[in-house]
């Protein structure tokens, strides 16, 4: 009897041997490609002991880098949040010509090399450009200062929130909003009490990804930063500096902070999906 059960094979499934084999291949691949690098970050950070690890965070330049990174994210993420919501409203709730093209343009920063994202601002605001010297004479410094770093970060993280919201809001259609309006709600009330609650988890997810990316951006920021320690160095750039000063333990120590940020982002994301899976599923694609 039990033999018969175990011999039964789902015609639309693989044999147990294949199942185990494929699962092992998948898990091994992920272990090597994703998990091992993650472990390496923590291993290298603590290789010289916990004292060396904590010492890395006492360094004034490291503290300045952490502060700058937080500042940049605190400016860049809200900017992209407002943009993302506005763009999603216009694109998801209305039909107009050229919509597909507009979406393609919003996607553009995804496939542009971060180096180019930085370069464009150097060309636009550098001392060799037309705008640079004019702004400079007004005492405004763009590149090699906070504004340039913010701009490069905004460019790189530009599509994240919009791309998360657009499919989600499209999926939900306009029925709820129309009902609210016909009941006498103002446009703002409709958005605040009808649309927003419907998309809030997707929105939160978009903000999380945008934030992780904003804090970790390297290429674009590297081009516009000027690398002044303690002033225009974000955490990823500080990691590179420490790495180049043979201070590998400290470099990996700062890296653990960013790795933790990534892990927290993933944990929150998983939690959101477990609880509000259906709402987010539509916006799952990156």
């Amino acid at each position, binding site marked *: 009897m039990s033999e018969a059960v175990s011999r039964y094979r789902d015609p639309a499934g693989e044999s147990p041997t294949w199942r185990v084999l494929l699962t092992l291949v998948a898990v091994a691949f992920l272990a090597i490609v994703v998990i091992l690098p993650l472990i390496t970050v923590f291993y290298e950070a603590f290789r010289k002991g916990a004292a060396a690890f904590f010492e890395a965070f006492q360094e004034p330049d490291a503290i300045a880098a952490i502060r700058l990174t937080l500042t940049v994210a605190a400016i860049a993420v809200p900017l992209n949040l407002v*943009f993302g919501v506005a763009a999603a409203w216009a694109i998801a709730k209305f039909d107009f010509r050229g919509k597909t093209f507009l979406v393609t343009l919003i996607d553009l920063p995804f496939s542009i090399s971060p180096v180019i994202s930085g370069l464009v601002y150097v060309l636009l605001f550098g*001392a060799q450009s037309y705008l640079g010297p004019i702004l400079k004479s007004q005492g405004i410094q763009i590149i090699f200062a*906070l504004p340039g770093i913010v701009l490069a970060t905004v460019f790189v993280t530009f599509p994240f929130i919009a791309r998360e919201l657009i499919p989600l809001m499209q999926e939900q259609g306009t029925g709820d909003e129309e009902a609210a309006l016909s009941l006498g709600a103002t446009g*703002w009330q409709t958005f605040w009490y009808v649309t927003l609650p419907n998309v809030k988890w997707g929105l939160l997810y978009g903000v999380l990804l945008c934030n992780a990316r904003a804090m970790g951006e390297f290429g674009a920021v590297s081009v516009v930063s000027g*690398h002044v320690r303690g002033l225009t160095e974000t955490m990823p750039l500080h990691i590179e500096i420490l790495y180049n000063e*043979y201070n590998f333990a400290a470099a990996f120590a700062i890296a653990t902070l960013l790795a933790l940020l990534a892990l927290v982002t993933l944990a929150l994301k998983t939690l959101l999906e477990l609880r509000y899976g259906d709402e987010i599923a539509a916006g799952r694609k990156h």
Partner: protein
Amino acid sequence: MSRSKRLLGLAAAGLFASLLVAPQVLADTKLLNVSYDPTREFYKEFNAAFAKDWKTKTGETVTIQQSHGGSGAQARSVIDGLDADVVTLGLESDIDAIASKTKKIPADWRKRLPNASAPYTSTVVFLVRKGNPKGIKDWPDLVKDGVQIITPNPKTSAGGRWNYLAAWLWAAKQYNNDDAKIKAYIADIYKHAPVLDTGARGSTVTFAQRQLGDVLLAWENEAYLAKQEFGDGDFDIVVPKLSILAEPPVSLVDGNADAKGTRKVAEAYLQYLYSAEGQTLAAKWFYRPAKPELVPADKLTLPKVDVVSIDDPIFGGWKVVQAKHFDDGGIFDQLYKPGK
């Protein structure tokens, strides 16, 4: 005003605020020293010493901010608007580039400070693996079969250019100025170079950390520093019989310092490099001080090397060298061809 408009207004205000709040409005005096790669450790200590000295002399607090990278790359940043008060770069032509492209430094800047504005000098030496397994003793050994050389990109790194010129110098003496033979030797050197990092520090990391190559052509101070950082057990330093006199110069960036009102302290900063304290620190970090008489004799530990200056007829000074060797289409571009 509706809330949505207020929100948009807020976002716009945020954008503009971020554009306007450039971190320039600062209470204490701040100096920005834009420097090249291997000076990191030296300036870290020197800056603290100067700030202390300035405080006792004037009562003012001064903070020195540092930026490091390949010398050419750093000059590019200053040309692009990085607000350096002083530049302390790896060679003359990088400061010349700033002077000619931005007019923020007068053309005769070299005459303003002693020793042609080079407060310390250095030379090019070889860093090899412990026990020198490939038996590299002098320039001809570099191009033996199976030897891999690590040296930075001469286009972006001052160290890279000094290395190139030191090799050129040896070949010029060896082959009696026979151009074809010198070029063949230089081309051979770069055939043995698997990596060209953009800065001297990048090359050291490649050699010491990434374990690539058999010999690192390096600034003398960078070689000693690497030996010290990684523990004496890993590397040996080989001093070639003949090398180049590398003079990393310093200058005030007049345009920036005047705009920021920091000229006085910036000039004092550069002068302090020539003081007994500055010179002793330079010696401590393996530079050869311009005024060795100010340094206690026991701090002068570097061995004697036979060096030739860039102003020697073999080269004819930096202006000639830069144009002939390193500008686009120059000799380096002609000689440097795909690896293997």
